[in-house]
């Protein structure tokens, strides 16, 4: 099973995953980290610990902001040329898509599909 790690500022990730479980029920292989109060080496060590636990089927990291310390630290922890898919802009649509599709979607396609799904959820639905 493809596993995922959500890394965000504050408690964004924890709250998003809580809502995913309210909608889809308890999930496995979906962990959360916050960068709050953590140095880069500490956060990097937490990510490396998760990478060791993640199985051979593939791993996805979803972070909240592509220009922040979560993104930089995730890239540094995974290393140059890593097969881990690192996606920025995590939202509810991306996470629901991950849990729903990870069993049936080849790992190579999953990142692209999740980016597309999360973008489709960002639209103006009211006002002018």
């Amino acid at each position, binding site marked *: 099973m493809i596993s995922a790690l959500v890394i965000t*500022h504050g408690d964004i990730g924890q709250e998003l995953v809580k809502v995913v479980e309210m909608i889809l029920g308890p999930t496995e292989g979906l962990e959360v980290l916050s960068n709050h*109060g*953590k*140095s*880069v*080496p*500490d956060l990097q060590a937490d990510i490396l610990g998760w990478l060791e636990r993640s199985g051979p089927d593939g791993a996805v990291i979803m972070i909240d*902001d*592509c*220009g*922040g*310390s979560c*993104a*930089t630290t995730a*890239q*540094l922890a995974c290393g*140059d040329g890593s097969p881990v898919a690192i996606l920025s802009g995590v939202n509810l649509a991306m996470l629901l898509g991950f849990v729903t599709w990870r069993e049936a979607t080849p790992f190579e396609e999953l990142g692209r599909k999740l980016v597309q799904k999360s973008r489709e959820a960002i639209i103006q639905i009211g006002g002018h």
Partner: protein
Amino acid sequence: MPVVLARVDDRLIHGQVTVGWSQQLNPDRILLANNAIAGDPWQCRVYGSSVPPHIQVTILSLSGAVLHLSQSEYLTEKTLLLTATVPEMMELARMGAPLSDINLGGLHFGPGKQEMLSQFYVDQADLSACARLLTAGHKLIAQMVPGGHKTVINQAQLSEMEDRM
């Protein structure tokens, strides 16, 4: 006005810098001074990609950064200078970088570090470097983000912290 902010932040380029301080100070360039990162093209790419496109980014060794700041073509630019540690900022000052106030913006917990102010951790090397910067006439201001809580660090606070360690 070559350096509009000289900041020590162990997260280096991240939101507090690229959004918080950059919106306030509007720098032309972020200059990251770090020997290890400057020597690793991949890390340069990772950090460089964190900077919004309207801000230039340059990643250099400590001595390279001092040279960069001394060149006349950069004197008209507004530069936001970053180091990961206080000793590195002290080294830049010692080598002649044109620095005034030093912003202590991100000193997170790590091995051998103790809390000096809220979410502001130092070790002996940090305290020594802070003392040398104060002696050299630099003002040390602990402040994470513009408009956030601000503490001006003085010699008495450094001595008191040294006694506690």
